[in-house]
């Protein structure tokens, strides 16, 4: 140990020991990444599948949605990935993500639309809204988001696509107006996006 104590005080020992530690930790991280990468991808795929299943009625599709995707540029120029549901080869509906700015950062909503442009379901999959107030958009906290089921751009008419406070047809919840407004805007944007690209989505490859 005394030799080690002498060695430890040498100038070269410091960078060398630091370098060795850095190498060991990097190797551990690389190994950890290698060992978990496949399983993490699988777990995330399962997550995606589970949320896709939430916005589509049971038995709506007979294909693997994760393998039937297409990309279309959205209104903001960013590509949107659409998962298409098919029954006997014909596109019966599609699922994609829409987002808008809420009270505290981006709210990401996954929406399912059938081939006629009618909402099949919407789920907020990511948000940072105030717990206890804005987080009622989360289906685990409140059923509010289920209101969108069956709605379309024609019913209610476009000017009614707003919270009741703004003269629209949708409930807001006590204490939070910005959050439901943002979700509303995102969902409406998604329906408009579908309407604009309907041909492409239903017939494109």
């Amino acid at each position, binding site marked *: 140990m005394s030799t080690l104590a002498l060695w430890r005080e040498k100038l070269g020992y*410091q960078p060398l*020991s*630091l370098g060795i530690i850095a190498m060991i*930790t990097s190797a551990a991280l690389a190994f*950890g990444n290698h060992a*978990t990468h496949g399983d993490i991808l699988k*777990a995330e795929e399962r997550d995606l599948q589970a949320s896709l299943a939430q916005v589509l009625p049971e038995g709506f599709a007979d294909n693997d949605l994760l393998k039937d995707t297409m990309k279309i540029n959205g209104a903001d120029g960013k590509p949107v990935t659409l998962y298409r549901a098919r029954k006997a080869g014909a596109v019966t509906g599609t699922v994609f993500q829409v987002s808008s700015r809420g009270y505290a950062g981006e709210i990401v909503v996954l929406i399912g639309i059938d081939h006629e442009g009618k909402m099949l379901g919407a789920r907020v999959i990511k948000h940072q809204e*105030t717990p*206890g*107030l804005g987080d009622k958009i989360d289906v685990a906290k409140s059923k509010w988001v289920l209101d969108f089921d069956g709605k379309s751009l024609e019913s209610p008419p476009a000017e009614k696509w707003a919270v009741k406070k703004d003269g629209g047809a949708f409930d807001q919840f006590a204490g939070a107006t910005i959050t439901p407004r943002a979700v509303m805007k995102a969902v409406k944007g998604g329906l408009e996006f579908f309407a604009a690209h309907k041909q492409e989505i239903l017939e494109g490859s």
Partner: protein
Amino acid sequence: MNYRQIMKDGLWTQNVVLAQLLGMCPTMAVTTSGTNGLGMGLATTVVLVASNAIVAAIRDFVSHQVRIPVFIGLIATMVTLVDMSLNAWFHDLYKVLGLYIALIVANCAVLGRAEAFAARQPVVASALDGLWMGLGFTGALTAIGLVRELIGAGTLFSQAHLLLGPKFAFMEITVIPNYGGVLMMILPPAGFLVLGLLLATKRLYERHAARSADVVAQPAAAQTIGCH
């Protein structure tokens, strides 16, 4: 240093939150409910035990001058590995805890224990110190979380089954049904408020205990390392 003393220090006298006032960043951020506090505490305990043991094992090879970067590197690596393995193999748990795991690096209690204890003590004592310090941290976080949750939302341990599995659903208690909630208790200011009240309670209790034992009250000599 005997093991009883280590346990007592970790759980009470040198409690990470209530005596050393370390790890304030995760303490304020996640204690919005009892379950959250418990989850963060347990994840931190795992990292504390592992990092203390490893630091103690290599303490003779690390020279004084480079010890801080070495410890930080080890702790960050450990946290990342825990994060990745939870994500891959305990994905449902990760969806609940994942948010907190990365925050553990920012918890200076982990570095604090490596520096103040593990760098000077044998492996077993260090691992035990990590365990008891971690459990003390868990206890304090859970207590703060429960107070905030009870006043803020009228429940106790809501969503505990997501963290501990469906068998623990019995822990979820709605104390006050149809409670409107006190928003401030869930927002950050209440974290400070509840922590302050808990600190005051601890000091009062200690003064009382000291007086009844007829010894001069001595405030616990907390090692303040000076971070948030």
